[in-house]
């Protein structure tokens, strides 16, 4: 997949996904995005003296679901630990996380049809709050600003951290991995996948080495939150690290930060001053005792995964892999497609419409199908009208589909209202063809003297006379007949 490079790139990813629970991991505060600062807080998530955490069981179910979808082992007796460090966005002075007994271990995910990325583990943890630096040029965190404000709305939000093995070797693979992971988490309903709001962010571990030599020293790039940034950060790191290695210098093991504007990564802290997190078992929570029956129930009721769905579309609906990918990966498109197919319309034609005109429309407007007025019924009805020959593809493309997307309504009603039905009476068409022939004797001469191309002129004239409604097949037939 990747272009041939001098060094081998070894990439492992730690993806933090926010679980789609209504409330936080250890209290009943809302997890809703966009509230006023510190609105979604209570003594528990603010770490008031004396408070205790109570585990949100929904979050545990979501973590199990993620584990099952990614082929992990679930540990029914996993436990929570305290990860300790000081930072103003961490009101307790520790984050409740999982250290040596995470809820899921192992697992895998496939990209590009056959490239397997193995997983190390998935663990549950609470998110920290957010600092707002009150200065224009607070580039270097706290130090550039006059003061900082703390917003604890996000503190205590449930996250899962999905840790991959260092199984990826290019930016393309890393991006494909995160994209597929995002689709899976969204499909099983545990994460909304909204990267702008921070629902999915990732840390990239990257090292370079020469073929056949041991792995190089890795750098960790923190908190990258878009597909584009993932690719750019990896590409930048490749350049930075290969330059060092080319010059015979060493790569330092350190944590780096990706800066969007410059596209560069910067050193945050080296291994020497890395935190000693002093992990120890969280004494305020008891080890979990997840019932085997719950795991089985979640396994049995697991929704169809994106890869399963794509495969099903190819085999069940006989549509090309690429179209299956486009439709199956988009919940809205998949829904409209499957419903329209159920109306007994050709799945191939429906798929062509979706990947063609409809996708083009959505891309231009930068919206999703759910934001349009198109219903599966009217979509199926329109394609049915084409299949029956009532309207032509062109009429549908030029005069119907856009209205259905923008205003909704019935395709049939539009056809009737605008009198768009094809003229399918051969006698009627012959009469029009005759009129065109009579009015254009010069072209008739040309045709008869062997210029076959001129036939298209007649077709065009007939279409013009019928406002595009004449059946192209019938026009052709009658022209051939009358010009013989």
């Amino acid at each position, binding site marked *: 997949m990747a272009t041939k490079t001098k060094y081998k790139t070894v990439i492992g990813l730690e993806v933090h996904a926010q679980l789609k629970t209504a409330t936080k991991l250890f209290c009943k505060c809302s997890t809703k995005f966009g509230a006023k600062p510190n609105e979604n807080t209570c*003594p528990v998530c*603010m*770490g*008031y*003296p*004396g*408070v*205790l*955490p*109570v*585990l949100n069981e929904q979050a545990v179910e979501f973590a199990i679901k993620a584990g099952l979808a990614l082929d992990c082992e679930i540990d029914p007796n996993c436990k929570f630990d*305290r990860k*300790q460090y*000081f930072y*103003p966005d961490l*009101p*307790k*002075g*520790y984050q409740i996380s999982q250290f040596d007994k995470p809820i899921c271990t192992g697992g895998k995910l496939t990209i590009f049809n056959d490239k397997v990325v193995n997983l190390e583990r998935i663990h549950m943890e609470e998110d920290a709050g957010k600092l707002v630096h009150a200065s224009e040029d607070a580039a270097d965190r*706290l*130090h550039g600003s006059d003061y900082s404000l*703390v917003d604890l709305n996000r503190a205590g939000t449930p996250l899962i951290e999905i840790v991959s093995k260092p199984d990826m070797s290019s930016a393309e693979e890393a991006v494909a991995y995160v994209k597929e992971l995002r689709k899976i988490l969204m499909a099983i309903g545990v994460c909304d996948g909204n990267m702008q709001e921070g629902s999915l962010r990732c840390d990239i571990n990257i090292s370079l080495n020469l073929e056949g030599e041991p792995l190089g020293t890795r750098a960790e790039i923190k908190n990258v939150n878009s597909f584009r940034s993932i690719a750019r950060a990896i590409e930048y790191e490749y350049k930075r690290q290969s330059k060092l290695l080319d010059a015979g210098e060493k790569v330092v093991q350190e944590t780096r930060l990706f800066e969007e504007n410059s596209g560069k990564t910067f050193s945050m802290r080296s291994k020497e001053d890395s935190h*000693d*997190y*002093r*992990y*120890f078992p969280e*004494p*305020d*929570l*008891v080890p979990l005792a997840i019932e085997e029956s719950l795991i089985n129930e979640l396994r049995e009721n697991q929704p169809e995964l994106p890869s399963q769905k794509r495969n099903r579309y190819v085999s069940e609906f006989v549509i090309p892999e690429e179209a299956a990918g486009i439709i199956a990966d988009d919940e809205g498109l998949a829904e409209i497609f499957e419903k329209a197919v159920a109306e007994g319309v050709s799945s191939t034609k429906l798929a062509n419409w979706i990947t063609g005109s409809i996708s083009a429309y959505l891309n231009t407007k930068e919206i999703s199908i759910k934001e349009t007025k198109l219903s599966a019924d009217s979509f199926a009805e329109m394609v049915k009208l084409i299949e029956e020959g009532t309207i032509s593809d062109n009429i549908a493309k030029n005069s119907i589909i856009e209205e259905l997307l923008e205003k909704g309504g019935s395709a049939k009603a539009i056809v009737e209202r605008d009198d768009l039905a094809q003229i399918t009476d051969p006698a009627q068409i012959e009469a029009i063809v005759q009129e065109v022939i009579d009015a254009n004797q010069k072209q008739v001469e040309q045709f008869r003297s062997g210029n076959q191309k001129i036939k298209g002129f007649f077709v065009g004239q007939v279409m013009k006379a019928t406002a595009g409604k004449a059946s192209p097949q019938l026009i052709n037939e009658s022209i051939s007949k009358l010009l013989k």
Partner: protein
Amino acid sequence: MSNYIINKSALELKESFLSAEISAEEITKAFLERINQLDKGNINSFIHICDDLAIQKAKLLDSRLIKGEDKAKLGKLAGIPIGIKDLINMMGAETTAGSNILKGHKSVYNATVTHKAISEGAVPLGKLNLDEFAMGSSNETSAFGSCKNPWDVNRVPGGSSGGSAAAVAAKFCPLAYGTDTGGSIRQPAAYCGLVGMKPTYGKVSRYGIIAFASSLDQAGPMTRTVKDNALLLEAMSGYDPKDSTSINTETENYLEYIKNNFETKESLEGTRIGVAKDFTPDSLDDDTKAAFENAIKVYQDLGAEIVEVQLPKIKYSLACYYIIAPAEASSNLSRFDGIRFGTRAEAANLDAVYKESRHNFGEEVTRRIMLGTYALSSGYYDAYYKKAQQARRLIFEDFENAFETCDLIISPTTPSPAFRFGEKSDPLEMYLSDVLTVPVNLAGLPGLSINAGYDSEGMPIGLQIIGKALDEKSIYNAAYAFEQKSGVEVREPALEALV
């Protein structure tokens, strides 16, 4: 009238209130008056007194009683004043944990035990002095000045619930909440001649109690009589969904149990009481030893069977405790970093704010944070914390084995009675005063201290009664039997001499 009120037990006060003999307001005012007269500048058991709040609550109870509300609905503690250790959150009051770092910190919510006390009709009078963050055995580490022992103001009341013990002994309140991590209820109860119960871990909700060592902390009642103690535990205990470590069992009626057992049978026949050599170290002072031997005789006379048991691993208790408790404390106290909680020092940058704010912790607290931080450091975790947890398991198993041949285990509560201020300046020597109580916390078992006599200088001596997990009722039954039949004289500290 005033003395008439303050001399009553909690149960008697409740009876007086419910029978409309004395109003809750009169009761409350009598105790507040005594506190105002004798506490400040003398005993120093209260850090904050909530007069207005208390009188308001008492008046409300009076009006409910007058309106003819069902007496049972007025609560198990109807009309009884209570003092609350200042480690426990009470809305509308400051909760300081006896530390400079929390000076001025107003509670924004009620601890579950506070809520229970109030909803059971108790009248909280104020917040009681303690060792800073409950770390200490003498009340000398409080940032609000040490609290004195009412039996001898030159001596410590014990700790960390020293304020609670002193207040009950001085009859400033008939009931008090204490907390016990390594003996912090039982040791001061012993030093002040009271009944103090450390319940089974998980019996009482920890929600709203500032954590010292989360896996050991347990709140409990401190009272002058066994029945008052049983009454308060009944009111404060029970499953709390806000505390994941709380045990979901039915609440028990201990008073009923005592009535149906010792009060009916007047004998402890059938009760096997364990005595262990491991619990009577050489360091025991002579009077304590004599009082303990007398207690064994009392129980024999009451028909109990005395059984010799072995607890070979409890000698590791202090070592084990001084890894686990500081480790958990170092983590629990991280939130007092000066950012969201704790007195913030003004400093140039974030690191300096952290460093400067820490100076608001006292010496003992700082020592324990350092010990705990070290024990949890990477590379030392296995050698210290993990090993201590393994030792803890063995200590628990020791008790489990011992309880196969007995129902209760008795021991002295402390190696000697209350010491004088400044007498134990070496921290290790101070830690030794908890040597007999710490094993009970490590094993998560219930343990009670009851007065078992006096030393040659008239200081009270404690007897510890340890039970099986969740078997507080047997402890109360045996403690009640001792209280009624031991013949130990009921004396009172001569407090009035102070004024």
